[in-house]
C-alpha cells in the first residue's frame, strides 16, 4: 500500500520577500501616501505650525513603507522631508544659522529612514512568521490526512482480517456436516439403485432428486471455497513477472468465456513495460475477478479493454468495460466484504482482489459512470532495478 508523509518543517523560506500584496494595492498606497504628504505640506505652509505638523509626516512614510515596501518608504520619507523643507522655506522662518533648516531636513530624513527601516524589518519578520505558520499548518494538515488515511487503511485491514478469519471458521464448521451429507447422498444413491433393481422399479425420479441435492452441495462447497480463499489467503510468493507476456497468455485463456458472452476484447499492452514483482497465481485470481465482473456488467455483450503501461515507478493495469456502470452506493461499497449486487455472488471477489493488490504493495481504484461502464485500475510497484 502506498504510504508517505510530508515533512512538517518548511524548507527555504524567502526572507527577502516583503509581502504578498498586489501591485495595484502597492501603487494605490504609494499614491495615497504622496497625496497625504502634499496635503500635509500645504497645511504646514498655510498654518505655519511646522513642529505641530512634522510628526504627521510619519503617516505617509509609514503607509508607503508598510504597504509598498522599503524603497517606497524611503522615497516617501525623502518626499516628506522635501515638502517639509519647502514649506519651511516658503514660510520664511528665521534661523540663527542659514544651514539650520538644511540640518533639520537631514535629521528629519534620517529619522524617517530609521523608522521605515525598522518598520519594514518588522513587516518582513511578520510576513516570514505568517508564511511559516501557514506552511507548517498546511504540512500538519497533510500529515494528519495521511495519518487518517493510514489509520483507515489499517482499520480496514484489521476488519478484513477479522471478517476473513470468521468466514474461514464458519466455512470449516460447515464443511464437516457437508462432508457427511455428501457421503450419505452417495450411500442413498446406491441404496435407491439397489432397491430399484430388487423391485424392478425405475429409480429415475429419486436419482434426479439426488442429483439436484448433489448440485446444491457442490454450490455450498464452492461458496465455502471462496470464503476460505479469502479467509486464509497465503502469503504471496512473488517472483519477477513480465506483465505483457503473462497477460497475453492469460487473456487467451479467458477468450472462450468472452466469446460466449459476446464480449469484444481489446488489448493495449505497452511492449516496453518493465516487469513487476508478483505472485502470478494470486494476481491472476484478482484480475479474473475483475474480468468476470466486467463480463457480468455487460449482459448483452460489449467491449472489454485490458491495458498495461508504465506510470512512474509503477505498472498500471486497467480493465475497462462499457457495461451498465455502478450507482454511487455500489461504488462506495465496492470493496466491502460480502457486499454484492449479484443474486449468486458471495461479495468476496473484489475484497479478495483488493487484498491481493495490497499484499503486493499496490493499490486498486475504480471509476464508474452509470450507464457507460467502469474502469478498474491496479497499480503495482515495478520490480527492483526495472
Amino acid at each position, binding site marked *: 500500500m502506498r504510504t508517505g508523509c510530508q515533512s512538517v518543517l518548511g524548507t527555504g523560506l524567502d526572507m527577502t520577500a516583503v509581502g504578498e500584496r498586489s501591485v495595484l494595492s502597492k501603487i494605490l498606497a504609494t499614491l495615497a501616501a504622496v497625496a497625504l504628504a502634499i496635503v500635509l505640506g500645504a497645511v504646514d505652509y498655510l498654518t505655519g505650525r511646522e513642529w505641530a505638523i512634522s510628526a504627521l509626516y510619519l503617516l505617509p512614510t509609514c503607509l508607503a513603507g508598510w504597504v509598498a515596501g522599503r524603497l517606497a518608504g524611503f522615497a516617501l520619507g525623502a518626499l516628506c522631508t522635501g515638502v517639509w523643507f519647502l514649506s519651511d522655506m516658503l514660510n520664511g522662518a528665521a534661523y540663527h544659522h542659514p544651514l539650520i533648516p538644511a540640518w533639520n531636513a537631514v535629521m528629519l530624513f534620517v529619522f524617517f529612514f530609521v523608522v521605515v527601516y525598522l518598520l519594514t524589518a518588522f513587516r518582513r519578520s511578520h510576513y516570514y512568521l505568517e508564511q511559516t505558520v501557514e506552511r507548517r499548518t498546511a504540512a500538519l494538515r497533510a500529515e494528519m490526512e495521511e495519518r487518517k488515511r493510514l489509520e483507515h487503511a489499517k482499520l480496514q485491514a484489521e476488519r478484513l482480517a477479522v471478517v476473513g478469519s470468521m468466514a474461514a471458521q464458519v466455512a*470449516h464448521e460447515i464443511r*464437516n456436516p457437508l*462432508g*457427511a451429507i455428501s*457421503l*450419505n447422498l452417495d*450411500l442413498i444413491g*446406491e441404496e435407491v439403485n439397489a432397491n430399484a433393481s430388487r423391485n424392478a422399479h425405475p429409480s429415475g425420479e429419486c436419482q434426479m432428486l439426488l442429483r439436484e441435492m448433489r448440485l446444491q452441495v457442490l454450490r455450498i462447497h464452492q461458496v465455502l471455497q471462496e470464503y476460505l480463499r479469502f479467509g486464509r489467503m*497465503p502469503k504471496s510468493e512473488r517472483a519477477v513477472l513480465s506483465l505483457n507476456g503473462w497477460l497475453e497468455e492469460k487473456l487467451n485463456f479467458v477468450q472462450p468465456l468472452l466469446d460466449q458472452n459476446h464480449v469484444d476484447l481489446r488489448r493495449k499492452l505497452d511492449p516496453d513495460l518493465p516487469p513487476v514483482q508478483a505472485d502470478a497465481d494470486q494476481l491472476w485470481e484478482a484480475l479474473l475477478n475483475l474480468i468476470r465482473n466486467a463480463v457480468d456488467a455487460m449482459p448483452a455483450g460489449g467491449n472489454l479493454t485490458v491495458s498495461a503501461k508504465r506510470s512512474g515507478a509503477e505498472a498500471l493495469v486497467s480493465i475497462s468495460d462499457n457495461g451498465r456502470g455502478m450507482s454511487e452506493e455500489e461504488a462506495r461499497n465496492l470493496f466491502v466484504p460480502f457486499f454484492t449486487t449479484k443474486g449468486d455472488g458471495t461479495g468476496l471477489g473484489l475484497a479478495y482482489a483488493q487484498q491481493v493488490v495490497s499484499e503486493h504493495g499496490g493499490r486498486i481504484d475504480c471509476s464508474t459512470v452509470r450507464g457507460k461502464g467502469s474502469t478498474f485500475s491496479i497499480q503495482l510497484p515495478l520490480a527492483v532495478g526495472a
Partner: protein
Amino acid sequence: MDELEDKSVLVVDDDPGMLRAMTKVLAREGMQVTGVSDPAAVATKLADSEKRFDLVITDLRMPMFSGRGVLALASVLPELPVIIITAFGGSDVEAQTLGLGAFAFLEKPVTAAQLIEVVKRALARSPLRET
C-alpha cells in the same frame, strides 16, 4: 470391491455424522472398519496386537489429540498408510501433513467415489498389500 475386501481400516473422526458416513461407505466396499470418535483411543487401537490395520483415515483437528498425533503414532508402523481428511485444510497444512508422512490429504466434503479411489491407491502403495 475385491481390492478392498477384508482390508482393515481405522477411521478417526470426532464428528459422529462424518464418522458414520465414512464407516458405511467403506463397509459397503467390504472393508473391516473400526470407527473411533475419541482420538485418545487411537493409541490403544493401534497397539492392539490382535488387530493389524491396513490403513488409517483420520481427521486433523480434533479435541485433545489431533490428526498429527495420530500420524505420529502411525509412523511407528512405517508400512501403515495414513489418509488425512479434514475440514481445516489449506495448501500449507497439506504440505505440512504430507511432510509428516501422510499418504494423502483430502479436504471435506468428499464424495464416496473420491474416498474409495484414494483408499485404493493407498492400499496399492502399501507394502502390506503387496505381501
